[in-house]
């Protein structure tokens, strides 16, 4: 029970008054970010990251991760009340949440959504508490080939799990890798692909890409839809909360299933969005009330919310234990670790136990704080959405510009942000996935380093990725996922032929 002891010392780190205050601030900011269009977990944290440079790393990560929890909670508010998903992972929540709100059950729908979010997150945190140290310990034996094969697995699973064109996924991902190579090469010290432009020497910072792709791109998309908000009024009375809580245990099976789906999708970089859809789909098929889904069934809120929050939380497991983030937001947090001078990866558990366990303990507390904040302050957050878009849009663009500038104190980066914004708009409309691109941009250097080191070991032979059972197993799994779209097609055709 080493983990329990470590966790308690983590609570001691996290429970200082300053950190508790940061938690509340973080969660509140996070909910606001989650509610506003154009600001989400990933770019919200990216914008606020420079403000934390002066804080101690543990406090900084506690605040930033709490923003993330807040954003996960916040997405549900707009879905239920306005039928507008504030975040992509809360799209599935609108299916039953909005009908419930229209039937005058907004309070119940929100309570169900928040509580399920909490349950999902809690499940994932418990899993992280016990699994992450084991994974990290195991990964301590990894050499460069093993690490590269894990990177390969991460990126190939994007190809295998994405519903769109695998070639578009690969193109977007490779663009991320290509952008990551721009600038100083850490091994040879040469400048790469700058073509003599001094501004490009800094390289493409992924924070800029995140702010542009997700922030500006989102604003352009919302503008096109010509948003008009027609929201249901909401106020959560304690009576309603207690009544809803009494009903929720009935859905334990749905909840457990969604937790498992969420954790799986979070660890493998499927992410919260597909997890929520998958959980909704499975619940609809399995549930006795399946035919009522879409008309305002509470179970239809429980399933996607639990899964989304479980996935969002579980995405931190590979980030902490392997240094490989499972989602764009986890990638931004990883970027934060690097900036604070911490090396994410298996050694983090050995070298900085205070930091790791403080963070894990803060996850428990942060989600509890989040649940409390959203249950008590819903009317306040809902009123943010009543601010017209013609005020919100320019203000958010200004905030994004500030965020992009502060990363390197460079106005060139603000131009880049705008460019990434247009790219995000086009990519979104053409179904080029952005998550693999961002992850490639973050992990590009590290993936390249492990590739080069592996090549040095083997003197240029790719056999090194199949040199022992472990690395061969991971590599084969990666290749299987890479060719999954093709394999799936062949199996589908065979099935069709048999039928």
């Amino acid at each position: 029970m080493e983990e329990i002891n470590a966790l308690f010392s983590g609570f001691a780190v996290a429970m200082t008054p300053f950190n508790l205050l940061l938690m509340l601030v973080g969660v509140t900011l996070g909910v606001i970010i989650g509610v506003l269009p154009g600001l989400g977990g990933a770019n919200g944290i990216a914008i606020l990251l420079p403000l934390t440079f002066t804080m101690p790393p543990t406090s900084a990560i506690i605040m930033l991760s709490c923003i993330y929890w807040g954003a996960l909670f916040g997405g549900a508010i707009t879905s239920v009340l306005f039928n507008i998903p504030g975040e992509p992972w809360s799209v599935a929540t609108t299916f039953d949440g909005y009908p419930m709100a229209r039937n005058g059950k907004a309070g119940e729908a929100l309570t169900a959504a928040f509580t399920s979010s909490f349950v999902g997150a809690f499940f994932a945190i418990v899993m992280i508490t016990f699994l992450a140290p084991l994974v990290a310990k195991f990964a301590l034996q990894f050499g460069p080939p093993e690490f590269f094969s894990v990177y390969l697995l991460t990126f190939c699973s994007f190809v295998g799990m994405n519903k769109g064109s695998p070639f578009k996924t690969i193109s977007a991902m490779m663009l991320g890798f290509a952008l990551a190579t721009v600038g100083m090469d850490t091994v040879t010290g040469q400048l790469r692909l700058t073509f003599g432009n001094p501004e490009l020497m800094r390289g493409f910072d992924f924070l800029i890409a995140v702010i542009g792709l997700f922030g500006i791109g989102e604003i352009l998309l919302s503008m096109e839809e010509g948003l008009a908000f027609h929201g249901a009024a909401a106020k959560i009375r304690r009576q309603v909360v207690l009544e809803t809580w009494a009903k929720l245990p009935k859905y334990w099976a749905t909840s457990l299933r969604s937790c498992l789906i969420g954790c799986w999708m979070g660890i493998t970089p499927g992410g919260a969005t597909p997890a929520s859809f998958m959980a909704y789909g499975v619940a609809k098929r399995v549930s006795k009330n399946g035919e009522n889904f879409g008309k305002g069934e509470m179970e239809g809120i429980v399933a996607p919310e639990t899964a989304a929050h479980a996935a969002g939380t579980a995405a931190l497991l590979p980030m902490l234990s392997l240094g490989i983030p499972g989602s764009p937001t986890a990638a931004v947090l990883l970027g934060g670790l690097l900036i604070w001078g911490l090396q994410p990866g298996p050694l983090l558990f050995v070298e900085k136990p205070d930091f790791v366990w403080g963070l894990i303990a803060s996850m428990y507390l942060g989600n509890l704080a989040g649940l409390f904040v959203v249950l008590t302050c819903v009317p306040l957050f809902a009123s943010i959405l009543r601010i017209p878009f013609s005020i919100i849009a320019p203000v958010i663009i200004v905030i994004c510009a500030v965020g992009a500038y502060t990363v390197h104190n460079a106005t060139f980066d603000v131009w880049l942000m705008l460019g990434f914004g247009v790219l995000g708009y086009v990519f979104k409309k053409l179904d080029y996935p952005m998550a693999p691109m961002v992850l490639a941009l973050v992990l590009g250097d590290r993936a390249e380093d492990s590739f080069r080191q592996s090549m040095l070991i083997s003197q240029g032979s790719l056999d090194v990725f199949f040199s022992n059972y472990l690395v061969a197993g991971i590599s084969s799994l990666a290749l299987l996922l890479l060719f999954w779209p093709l394999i799936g097609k062949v199996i589908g055709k065979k099935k069709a032929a048999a039928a």
Partner: protein
Amino acid sequence: MSEQANNSNEDSVISVRMMDIITAIGFLAVGLTVMIGSLKLGASWGSDGPEAGYFPFYISLIIMLSSTVTLYQAAIVNKKKKTESFVDRESFKQVMAVLLPAIVFVLGVQLIGIYVSSVFYIAIFMVWLGKYPLWKAIAVSVGVSVALYLMFEYWFQVPLPHGSWFNPLEFVGVN
């Protein structure tokens, strides 16, 4: 059938297929640039291991292969398919109404600093697209700028751009 579809999309600025083709060509261009850049650096096996262009070279190769397939699918396979609109005229206008001022805004950030640019940008946006009275627009935009100033320069001591060409805040004593 396809003629009818074309008629109903009369307001379309550009079709999805066309946009797919343009994007794929863009990817090919990026791939080619990266390839040339990495070949210049040396993409083979040096005396001390892989050269600096080794990894980017293969990345560029994969970009070019995958975007060629996308280009082929869009240009040849989907040729007969019904044309879908990427963006219609009205939406395109809306998007440009945000994007063009944003470009001017970023230029302003570079030249006269972020605070004054933000005041103009938010106020003009509100009056022009939101049809707000001028006093409200000025109140909101000045409020946002002052809040930014307090938060960044005062509390967190993170300087924001004051303008490389001309700093209008000199008049109120901020350098």
